[in-house]
């Protein structure tokens, strides 16, 4: 299972991560090893098998509530841990140049 350096860099871009040259080399190696192990799944006959997205009980009807507005997190609380904020918004560097 050959994963190229270029592919790893592309994935890093999608994941908004950056790596130094040495980190990248170790990373590519470990990635290869892990993905190599995962290839095992190709041995399984999955013909006609439905996917399981999550293991909840099929009959559970608990997931919906009435469409009634409720109080939510107050603005001040939401901003409390913010690295940079205005009176009612989060502040970030320029979105686009």
């Amino acid at each position, binding site marked *: 299972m050959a*994963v190229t350096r270029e*592919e*790893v860099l592309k*994935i*890093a871009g*999608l*994941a*908004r*991560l*950056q*790596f130094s040259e040495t*980190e990248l080399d170790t*990373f590519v190696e*470990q*990635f290869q*090893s*892990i*993905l190599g*192990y*995962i*290839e*095992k*799944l*190709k*041995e*399984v006959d*999955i013909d006609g*098998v*439905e*996917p*399981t*997205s*999550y*293991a*909840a*009980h099929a009959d*559970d*009807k*608990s*997931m*919906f*509530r009435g469409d009634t507005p409720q109080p939510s*997190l107050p603005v001040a*609380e*939401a901003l*409390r*841990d*913010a*690295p*940079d904020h205005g009176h009612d918004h*989060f502040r*970030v*560097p*320029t*979105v*686009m*140049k």
Partner: protein
Amino acid sequence: MKLDNACELRDAVNDGRVTAVEVAKAACARMQSADPILKAFVAVDTVRALACAAEVDRAVQSGKSMPLAGVPVAVKDNICTRGLATTCCSRILEGFLPPYDATAAGRLERAGAIIVGKTNCDEFAMGSSTENSALQVTRNPYDLERVAGGSSGGSAVAVAAGMAAVALGSETGGSVRQPASFCGVYGLKPTYGRISRYGLVAFASSLDCIGPFAHNPRDLALLLSVIAGWDEHDATSSSVPVPDCLAALDEPFAGLRIGVPREYFGAGLDGDVREAVGQALRNAEALGCSLTEVSMPHTEYAIADYYIIAPAEASSNLARYDGVRYGFRAAGADDLGLMYQRSRSAGFGPEVKRRIMIGTYALSSGYYEAYYGRALRVRTLIRRDFDRAFENVDLLLAPVSPTAAFRIGEKTEDPLQMYLSDIYTVTANLAGVPALSLPIGFTPAGLPVGLQIIAGRFQEAVLLRFAEAYAKAFPVTAPALKV
């Protein structure tokens, strides 16, 4: 004061034989003497703990009886607690103070429990040894050169070393059962959806579960009765009623049909663990249980399956850590994209990055069906292995982990080696079934060994009844702790 029985402690506090403040002081004293060596805790607020204890004492004095009155509890650092920093042992959440309590934490405190501190874990619960914590390594109280297990190592040690009577940890792939086994305590992974995930920092949403640690099955039942049950804040929490597990423990034990899955006893299983589990099987027969060998043919694919599904979900869940609204933000970035990149790269540790990358890869265009799509179908087959087994047996018995606690640093060079230590535990997470680790003895070198028991969905009472009967009939004498 020994803090190893939550039921007894809460009875003593409710009866007025001891105050919650005295119990809290005992916990804090033990933490002060043992934790500088063990490093199980990452956040402690003694003032807050004593204030909560004083509140409980006032309630008790006014005639109120509380289910967990004065019981000292340790809570894993990935479970939100309003008054205490919650960082998932990651730099990216350094100093984060949640604006709300996790449902489980809130229910504990309203029942009179005293949260004595937040415990160390692998960063974002990603790991099997607690060595991936960005903060510190937790040591095994039976051998200080060995790991506590992970990812909930801190919680397991807090209980094992008598710093808390019970603790909350979490599982995505064995992270309560494995440290319980490594540290010689009980650890329960309930059915997925049994305990609300609201406030449990999301790693893999279809797998994550909160799970309790304790010194005995009765305390697990007590905790379950307080924290389990439907929660309107968690759309995946189950409305299936929580049985009275404490009452179930008082029923006479008549023996159960036990299945022994052959795939869990293969080549990789260490000799000492195999022997201890073998003895436990003979003990189960002596208790009146019948043993049958069963086959769960997709077991060998569970790790590969887990290491696609969990990282895929993690890559999505951890996208929120971007330096915008909370946590660490890298300074000096000219634009938003650079800010995201630098904050995440500096804030996340290597294992977290590895899993985000694997997950992103598995979900990326061109690979989605081949990896993630396939993994979800293999998951169905793993789940069917359990469904089929439980048509004929009440419980499955197996080892928890291939070995007892390994040495600190022993598996950190090769991520895949670390992943393989979850080989017997991830199946229950993928299938969503409840499973428990009970301490059954020690290796000749004095390291704890746990037995794993697995039951069908929502059958926690069966697990606890077996554990209680087993503990009564086959008590374990532990060697002295190193601290």
